[in-house]
């Protein structure tokens, strides 16, 4: 057995295989879409779907961080809405104010997230309760402070640079996709190659043991939730860029979608295992699935059923847990 000490782990371990399969599922769904509706998987079709997926993917980055430590962020919808509104009201649609507005908005997201983290780590409030309450708090604050979005600046447009970042292309890809690629690289690097990433996994595996090994568990927790808030706010900014203006209710769909993307991508809901690349694959395949279903001319109830069945079928193909024992 000592001869085995140098044995290498297979490159395609379970987790990596799972990410690969999630990507494959997306590709297969693209092909099905193309068969049903020629043009679905045309370059412009793929680009449009990836742009839509990028919003989910950005929120899912934050959700990945908190789920990796066994938490969850239910405050996504209204942090996102608040981010969108803060972006337009602080920039008033002027490019000159875009930078401070971006900083303010992202800072707001991170601060709200940090509060979530502090509630979870320092006050011991269950993440579900803390972040759900925070969602309500942000909704109340957003509606109340903007007078129900009636403030004079609420109707402002996103600064042209922000709109351009979503709609314009660079080397054939919309800039928003470049941003997403940058996020994928940074987040994956952060998780895989940095001390902070390592601490994230250790806390997710066993907070008690991490604490006894000298890891600042509460600090890590707070930073992770802050990142989640940050990414929600960023998604809000991207969405106002996409639509031009802030609208209430923009964030609603992103809660379940982001969680679904993360868990479908193989991140374990009780923490400690998974990669952002998995969440990316999850975001893409889910968006393609929704789009394929939209392309089928079928009633909504049918879409709803098929959606569930397809996800189950995909998971039965690749997402099964190991038999324990």
């Amino acid at each position, binding site marked *: 057995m000592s001869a085995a000490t140098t044995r290498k782990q297979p490159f395609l371990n379970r987790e990596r295989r799972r990410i690969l399969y999630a990507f494959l599922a997306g590709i297969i769904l693209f092909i099905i879409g193309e068969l049903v509706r020629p043009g679905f998987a045309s370059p412009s079709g793929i680009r449009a779907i990836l742009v839509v997926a990028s919003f989910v993917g950005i929120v899912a980055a934050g959700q990945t961080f908190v789920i990796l430590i066994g938490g969850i962020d239910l405050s996504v919808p209204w942090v996102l809405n608040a981010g969108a509104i803060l972006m337009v009201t602080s920039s008033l649609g002027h490019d000159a104010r875009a930078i401070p507005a971006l900083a303010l908005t992202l800072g707001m997201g991170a601060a709200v997230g940090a509060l979530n983290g502090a509630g979870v780590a320092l006050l011991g*409030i269950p993440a579900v309760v803390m972040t759900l309450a925070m969602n309500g708090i942000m909704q109340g604050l957003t509606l109340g402070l903007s007078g129900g979005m009636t403030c004079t600046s609420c109707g402002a447009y996103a600064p042209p640079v922000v709109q351009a970042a979503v709609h314009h292309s660079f080397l054939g890809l919309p800039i928003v996709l470049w941003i997403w690629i940058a996020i994928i690289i940074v987040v994956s690097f952060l998780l895989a190659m940095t001390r902070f990433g390592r601490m994230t996994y250790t806390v997710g595996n066993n907070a008690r043991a991490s604490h006894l090994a000298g890891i600042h568990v509460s600090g890590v927790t707070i930073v992770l939730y802050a990142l989640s808030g940050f990414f929600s706010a960023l998604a809000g900014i991207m969405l106002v860029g996409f639509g031009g203006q802030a609208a209430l209710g923009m964030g609603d769909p992103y809660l379940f979608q982001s969680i679904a993307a993360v868990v479908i991508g193989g991140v374990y809901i009780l923490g400690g295992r998974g990669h952002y690349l998995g969440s990316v694959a999850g975001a893409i395949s889910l968006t393609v699935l929704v789009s394929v279903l939209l392309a089928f001319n079928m009633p909504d109830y049918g879409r709803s059923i098929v959606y569930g069945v397809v996800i189950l079928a995909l998971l039965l193909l690749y997402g099964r847990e190991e038999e324990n*024992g």
Partner: protein
Amino acid sequence: MPIPETILAASGPRRSRLSHALTQNIGLALVVALLVACIILYCGLYIATQHRLPGGYELTSTLNNTMPLAFAALAQTLVVLTRGIDLSVGGVIDLTNAVAALTLMGGPVSTTIWTIAILGIGALCGLLNGVLVAVGRLQPILVTLSTLSIFQGIAIKILPQPGGAMPPGFTGVLANPNVPLSLIYIPLIGILWAIFRRTRLGVSVFAIGNDAMAASSHGISVKRTTILAYMLGGVASACAGLFLAANATAGDATTGDTYTLTSIVAAVLGGVSLFGGRGSGLGALFGAFVTVMVVNILFFAHIDPLYQTFYEGLFLLAAVIAANVIGQIVRRRR
């Protein structure tokens, strides 16, 4: 009776039974305290604004409006105890509510039969979830996320348009608007829960939530227990759907959706651990009452409607923090 050669002697006096009971049921004790505090606050506000005491009507309507959530929270608890989570609670409520709207219209006999059939539908939904989790070895959150969508779709298919009318007798029993008949359901749930806790199945559910591997080495079938827990959860969700239909006197295939999240919150408030193995259905029941009392308290506090969710959020946090502080004090005392 063998006489041990060596006796491992006690080193000090044992802790009192009460102290054990308190620390073991700390979650339950806290939610009860929380509920009492909410009720006191509510009564204070009510008297201050209405210049009279809340009476039978207030009691009846609060009970009737809480019952669906109470059952949904119970359903959630059964699944969460196994270290799972059930996002399809809302879907099962949609589905059973829709079926109720279509079928509960005849006389008492047909109504009774259909009521039982609807509970059976809930059990089937739970069976599907349970089998996919236990035999399919999929993560519970993924399974129930998918089945949520499936159940919602089926519900809209069978009841595309809200409608139907519950027979008065059905409403009279489940959600009587005039007498606080629902008062009997609370002890009933309490008794059912106590019975459940004292069955093999109940113990097994807790055991697999504690440590599935350890439970299986004691001969507990993890698969069977998981499936049964989801099925019971399905039945409880179906109860929620029925109570919702009774309270509404009609059906709607979309009203269950909100229960997915609120059931989790009620369970967590009730001291159920999302990591499984710890908690009580009774706690979840009280957790449901706390969430409804929060609505009442904020109503009579007459808050700017735009800021309403802000205060709800703050209140929820304040309540949980207060409960935590009390819990710490109790724990430190032992």
